[in-house]
């Protein structure tokens, strides 16, 4: 029997499970609080599931494993380390954030900076970022489904679209329920893959015996890996310390300012649950990343070189061509789970930003909850359809694009969020100038250095965040000094 039949069967089972799990939210959603935050009722296990499932995206699984395959252990330094640093920052402001009776993070800005415009402005930034990121998730999962099921890419992304739409339609309750399923599939998938790879290689000891000797061009158009580079922190000169630091600004700080995590803090039932959610999620993420690391390194041992142009393609290619059908099924389902679970959380933010932060905030403050719920669902349909169209024209390499988006989130949200939480009287002016300054810096950086004559591998978020911080603090001091003189 051909392999694709097993993939189709695995896919069918996944679809049925999603159908069963995703239905739940419709029953329970009665108000906006239910739709956005599951009525702030999440206990530890569901909150850990949704936090983890949102965190671990297709970009994480494909990108991290593919980059480990291509560059070795150095991948940890510019990705996982930066992400965990961001997670530590989230932990710092969890207690303070939990005290606010808000539904979205842009609403927090309105509350702290007393500005409806700021709420709408930040919501617009979120819309741009998340719509693009959802497109990336659809694209990622589309490639995987298309490859495994041997069906056209357009049909594959339609599946991603329907899954994302279905799991988001019931609001946060639906997302949390399907995220619980996704987390189980992700953990089983990543750990299972690592196990199968280790079994193939001959164990962990054998893997680390062979890894230092890996040499040659991993992917088409990539630099040749010199012996020992797979375990070198800088991948034998591929990366620099400055690159790592700059990546922290994009991925680490971008993650800490990312509303998709802040919203999950708001959705927990109390402060203690929120702290536990972050702590247990970090533990499970360590396990998952370790499993992905083993898979990436093992794949390089089994398949030293691949006729591919992007690290993101390495894992599906490896699964399909070098491993058995079960391995392929696990990769297919885990990747789909990772992509859908991240995208549905982001789609919920797209809905809340457009309906709560823009429509209700600026256009119709007196709209009934029933009407707003309907608009939210329409926003979900539109919010998933636009990325679907975008995914027809796939963007560049997944992970790098993701880092740009989180860089934009970092320059927009980090300073106003931290200032709003920790300063006594943050001003609207300093927040707006900081956001606009940060955005301008990142745009200029990308225009000049990414496409201009001067090139650098510094992450554009670094100058953006620095500019935004200087502007935020500078304007704040200036205003205080003026007040003092007056």
């Amino acid at each position, binding site marked *: 029997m*051909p392999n*694709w*039949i097993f993939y*189709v069967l695995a*896919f*069918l089972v996944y*679809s049925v499970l*999603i*159908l069963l799990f995703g*239905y739940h939210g*419709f*029953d329970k959603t009665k108000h906006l609080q239910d739709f956005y935050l599951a009525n702030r009722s999440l206990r530890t296990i569901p909150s850990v599931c949704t936090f983890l499932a949102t965190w671990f995206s297709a970009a994480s699984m494909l990108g991290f494993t593919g980059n480990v395959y291509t560059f070795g252990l150095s991948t940890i330094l510019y990705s996982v380390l930066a992400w965990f640093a961001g997670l530590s920052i989230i932990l710092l402001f969890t207690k303070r954030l939990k005290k606010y009776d808000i539904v979205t993070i842009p609403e927090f800005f309105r509350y702290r900076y007393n500005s409806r415009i700021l709420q709408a402005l930040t919501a617009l930034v979120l819309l741009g970022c998340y719509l693009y990121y959802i497109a990336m998730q659809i694209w990622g999962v589309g490639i995987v489904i298309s490859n495994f*099921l*041997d*069906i056209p890419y357009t*049909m594959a992304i*339609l*599946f991603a679209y*329907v*899954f994302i*739409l*279905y799991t988001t*339609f*019931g609001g946060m309750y639906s997302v949390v329920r399907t995220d619980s399923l996704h987390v189980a599939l992700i953990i089983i998938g990543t750990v299972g893959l690592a196990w199968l790879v280790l079994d193939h290689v001959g164990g962990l000891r054998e893997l680390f015996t062979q890894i230092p000797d890996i040499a040659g061009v991993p992917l088409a158009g990539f630099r040749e890996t010199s012996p020992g580079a797979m375990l070198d922190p800088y991948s034998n000169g591929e990366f620099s310390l400055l690159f790592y630091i700059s990546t922290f600004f994009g991925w680490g700080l971008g993650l800490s300012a990312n509303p998709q995590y802040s919203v999950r803090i708001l959705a927990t039932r109390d402060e203690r649950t929120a702290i536990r959610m972050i702590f247990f999620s970090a533990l499970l993420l360590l396990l998952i990343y370790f499993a992905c690391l083993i898979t990436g390194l093992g794949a390089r041992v089994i398949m030293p070189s691949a006729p591919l142009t992007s690290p993101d393609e390495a894992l599906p290619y490896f699964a399909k061509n070098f491993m058995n059908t079960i391995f392929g099924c696990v990769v297919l389902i885990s990747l789909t789970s990772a992509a859908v679970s991240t995208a549905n959380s982001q789609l919920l933010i797209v809905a809340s930003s457009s309906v709560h932060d823009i429509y209700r905030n600026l256009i119709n403050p007196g709209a*009934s909850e*029933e*009407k707003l719920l*309907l608009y939210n*669902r329409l926003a979900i349909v539109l919010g998933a359809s636009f990325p679907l169209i975008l995914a027809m024209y796939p963007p560049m390499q997944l992970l790098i694009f993701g880092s740009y988006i989180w860089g934009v989130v970092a320059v927009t949200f980090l300073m106003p969020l931290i200032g709003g939480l920790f300063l006594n009287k943050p001003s609207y002016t300093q927040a707006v100038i900081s956001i606009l300054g940060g955005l301008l810096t990142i745009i200029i950086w990308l225009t000049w250095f990414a496409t201009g004559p001067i090139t650098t591998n510094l992450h554009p978020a670094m100058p953006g965040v620095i500019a935004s911080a200087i502007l935020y603090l500078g304007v704040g001091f200036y205003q205080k000094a003026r007040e003092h003189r007056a």
Partner: protein
Amino acid sequence: MRLSIERKIMIPFLLVVLSLTVTIAAVAYWGGYQFYVNYRMNEIRKVLFKSDQFLLNNNSAEEVTTLLEFLGEDVVLLEKGRLVRLPPLLEPYSKLIIDISRGMSGRGQTVNDTLLYRSDSLFTETLWLVALYSPDEDRLIGLPVLIEPFPEPLLFFQKYILLVGLLAGMLAVEITLFLSHHITIPIKKLVGVCQELIPGGGTYNLPVTRNDEIGILANSFSKMILRIEENLHEIKNMQQFNDALFSSISTGIITTSYDGQSIIKANPTASKILKLSEAEIIERWGEDNHELLSLMKRHCLELRRKSGAPVLWEHNIKDGEENLCLSGRTELVYDSEGKSIAIMLLFEDITDKRRFERNMERVKQLASFGEIAASLAHEIRNPLAGIKTCSQVLADQLPSDIRTNQLVTAMSAEIDRINGLIANMLSLARPQVPNRTGVCLNDSLHSISRLILRVLKEKQLYLENRLSAELPQLYVDRDHLKQILLNLILNAIKASPSGSTIKVSLHSLSSSHLSFVISDEGKGIPPENLNKIFQPFFSTDPDGSGLGLSIVHRLIDENCGEIDVISETGKGTQMIVKLPIKTEV
């Protein structure tokens, strides 16, 4: 498990989509399968025709071998009834193949498809032999065709149908969920409101902004609930008003079942009059050992006998040491259609009213007597003074002997007695404005006891003062009080047998009045005389004037007091005097 309306809509819809998908897939598969089988057969037929053509022109052994190699290992060759080649797959069917060639031999060159094998399993596997017979050479060339139940090309095609079905199913669920959720929102709200209304007292909010039938239904329901709530509010108010009326009315009300056998309700006034709680009234209804309840039940039964004509009644019964006088009415309660549904007893305590009426009667009697007495006294006193003067003159003029002295003395005594009688009559007739001041009851009793000491001794009676030394002062005329005490005690002395005790004791004390009792152990007053004892000149004593108690009543009345009598024949009499006490200013 309760199926929500959303699921009830979704499940059939989903089943329809899924069954349609499965049907389309099955039909497509069946069609594809047929096409696939025909296609393969045709392909083989074509090959066989070409092979036959080739053999017709080239019959050398080498060419035949070349052809057989071209056709592959599975080819069957039968020449002149002898099997030249038979692939292992067809070995079990060798006899059948020879039979086929015999069957075809009479019909010229022909192609025949014969089913050699069909599996019994659900997914049927079939083995065909496609054979071409050439009569000139008596040669049969055949190729087996094994059709698997799930040929891969078909499955590959089916994959799309399956995936499209899956997509359609998910979209169907999604759309159904959304539509059914949207349709059922007002219904769910209605259910929510109904559930809130069941325990009562819940508030509800049913904002529906839809114009379709469900929206209209929800709005109508909302209006209906508002109307019901307004009516309920009105009914509640009315009920509260009725309850308040029922509770606060000074008439005792008891409602019983239509047959009068059980009590429905009794108001607090009824409880107060009967000195029973509502529960006790219900429990003891009709008991023989409760005189009033027993009487009331009898009235209910009497009402039934009288076909509903109201029954008026009045009862004077003994309630402990006091009399209780109740006046009531028993009548039927009718519903809006005029049908009797219950019996109602309305009654009130008229003890005080009756006592007041009696007092008023006495006062009237005394007033009319006073008028007569005053005119009589005036007419009698003057001639009497003349008679007395004449008797004294006569006494001086008559010889002073014993007999004469006795007569004169007797005459004078009788004239004095008539004078005394007239003085009493005048004191009864003339209203005297009392000079009310604080008076100690004990002191007054003590002062009169000296006057009656001798009489008590003569009759060997004992006067026992049981009054506390710390009683509040009475606010009465000092002389009036003495007169009241003297008259009452003298009456008691007259009634008491020798050796008995007359007691003066406290009856009750309130913030405004003090009641004391003068009781004797005498022969008592017959019940028929009880109402007459305060009437002037009523006396059972042949030597008595019958004015003592009338004077007492008059004096008590003038001092804003009350007098009551409890007497039992053969056991004694209690005179209860209630007088105001002096309040501190």
